[in-house]
């Protein structure tokens, strides 16, 4: 009967092993994904990303997401944060390529050590064979943002709603930001198609300095009839300077026309009150969600995106503003009722 006891013991062990294996197979894998960002708490757009990450965690409860950023725009600081993140061995990283030279080394190191990387918000603008070998890029296209904004202005001018662009001032709040230069290049090439010229004006980010620099330029270049702002928060400053110089900056068929990249309560109220022609949005919410989906599918199914995923620009104007009001309230705590900036 010894053999019977052995069979019973064997069956029992096999049963326990099978049960354990089944239990392990049913337990989903835990992942930790980190977004290393240049968009800090000084930039309200951070909330688009963190809100999207919260939604992602609700849908994928076995994934923990983290958002790390610095408040000052600094390439060195971003590199330091990225190095720290790589050292913590996450299961995936999303990072903006604010400077390909500075970030190439750390990102290649992460990829070589088996950490998948998705670029978001700002891509490596080199041809695909030369660029940093991240999995994919999720975000707006800085050049396209400027280009489409220029095309939008030309379309509206052809419809007689605004003047045809003659000289565009691209108001750059940070001279070293590659993405801002790409936006300026985009609008420069778009308006060049109707014979207009573009000035890349470094305004600084401080409100008083911005106004002083812009006024200096507009006073001596009265032929300027469009200003492209790099954030909606500078649009009222541009509007006020142009207004003080008697350049008729409201949306009509004469004088100055104000454009903006980025949309929030200030931009929405500017659109509603006729101070701002259009503000482009780069699909920020999607940029906080899609990178993690691809990282997740990479781990679960081995999927890899075969092309970049462009989330913007989305042109926001008076025709679709009501769709952005609820989003604005969710992200910024206020919608287009915030008109104080334009007074």
């Amino acid at each position, binding site marked *: 009967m010894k053999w019977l006891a052995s069979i019973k013991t064997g069956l029992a062990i096999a049963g326990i092993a099978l049960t354990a294996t089944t239990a392990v197979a049913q337990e989903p894998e835990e992942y930790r994904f980190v977004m290393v960002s240049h968009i800090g708490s000084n*930039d*309200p757009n951070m909330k688009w990303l963190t809100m999207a990450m919260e939604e992602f965690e609700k849908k994928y409860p076995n994934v923990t997401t983290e958002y790390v950023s610095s408040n000052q725009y600094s390439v060195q600081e971003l590199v330091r944060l990225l190095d720290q993140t790589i050292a913590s061995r996450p299961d995936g990283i999303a990072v903006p390529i604010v400077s390909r030279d500075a970030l190439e080394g750390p990102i290649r190191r992460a990829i070589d050590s088996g950490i998948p990387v998705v670029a978001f918000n700002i891509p490596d603008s080199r041809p695909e064979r030369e660029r940093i070998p991240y999995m994919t890029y999720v975000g707006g296209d800085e050049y396209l943002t400027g280009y489409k904004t220029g095309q939008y202005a030309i379309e509206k001018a052809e419809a007689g709603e605004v003047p045809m662009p003659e000289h565009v001032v691209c108001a750059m*709040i940070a001279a070293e930001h590659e993405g801002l230069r790409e936006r300026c290049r985009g609008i420069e090439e778009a308006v060049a198609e109707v014979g207009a010229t573009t000035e890349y*004006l470094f305004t600084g980010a401080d409100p008083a300095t911005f106004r*002083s620099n812009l006024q200096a330029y507009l006073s*001596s270049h009265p032929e300027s009839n469009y200003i492209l702002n790099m954030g909606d928060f500078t649009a009222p*400053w541009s509007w006020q300077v142009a207004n003080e110089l008697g350049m008729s900056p409201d949306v009509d068929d004469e004088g100055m026309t104000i454009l903006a990249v980025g949309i929030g309560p200030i931009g929405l109220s500017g659109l509603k009150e006729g101070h701002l022609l259009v503000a482009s949005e780069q699909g920020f919410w999607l940029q906080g969600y899609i990178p993690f989906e691809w990282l997740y599918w990479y781990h679960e199914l081995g999927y890899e995106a075969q092309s970049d995923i462009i989330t913007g620009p989305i042109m926001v104007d008076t025709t679709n503003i009501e769709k952005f009001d609820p989003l604005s309230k969710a992200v910024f705590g206020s919608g287009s009722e915030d008109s*104080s900036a334009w*007074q």
Partner: protein
Amino acid sequence: MITLNTSAFARRPDFGAIVGVIMMFAVFSLIDFSGWWSGSTLGNILQFTAILGCMSIGQAIVIMAKEIDLSVGSVYGLTGIAFITLEADLGVPGAIIAAMAIAGGIGFLQAMAVIKGKIPSMIVTLGGLFAVRGLIYVWTGGSVRSLPAESRAHWLTQLFGGELFGIEAAILWTAGLMVVLSLVIWRMKFGNRLLATGGDENTALSQGIRTDRVKIRAFVLCSLLAGFAAILTLADKPQTHVTLGDLMELEAIAAAVIGGCLLSGGRGSLLGAVLGAFIITGVRYELISLGAPASWYISFVGLVLIVALIFNQSLIRWAGNRA
């Protein structure tokens, strides 16, 4: 007799800045007469000079005491944000008092860290620069509202931000502060003690001067003036952002140095600091007007700073030899 007077005038710490302003007027009048002398150009330059000059006066006082304050740009930002944010609960007078109290408090804390902690002011105020800027981000979450219409019409807002006798209030306030504080420095005991502390602290101590108290007053005054500059800015144009005061500390220091303040302490001029602010603002404005790539002006401010230092040093040596 004339030679002696010239020599005495050349020994003034702000002589270099006065010559610089005269040269600037001459050069820009030659290059761009109609643009430079237009009302909007000089009005804009004077308006921004008033804001930067107010900060530079405070910086000059600290430099005279052989210290430095790198946090003024952030203090300027925080005071402005505090004014705008607290106005909803405290009203305009309450918000101004609270915002100025915050500015003064930061100056006092930094002074205590320098004096009691025996830490170089460059390190303490560099920490202050980042810490205060961080406070702005945490407090605002990245977005700042503007003053409502009724608060803009308040008499106190108009007093600091409107026009007085047809001139921008900020210009008159800065000019008034410069005159009053110059009198304090050149005619009152505090000025003597400040310059003595900055010139040679040990000698000042041996003569019974409480150098710690002098430095505390200098730091508090510097922060208060940076805060007041923010009130002047926002009372006039209340649309702002968390970037308020971004990098202004460097321009304030540059203005004080161009104006004749020696970083080794004991020598300086408040008029010079304001003229230094005028030179920086005027050069930047005119460079942009003349079509120079705008990003060049940062390099140009650096060049002006170096040239001014060499010029000031040469003047001191020349005046010394003449004497």
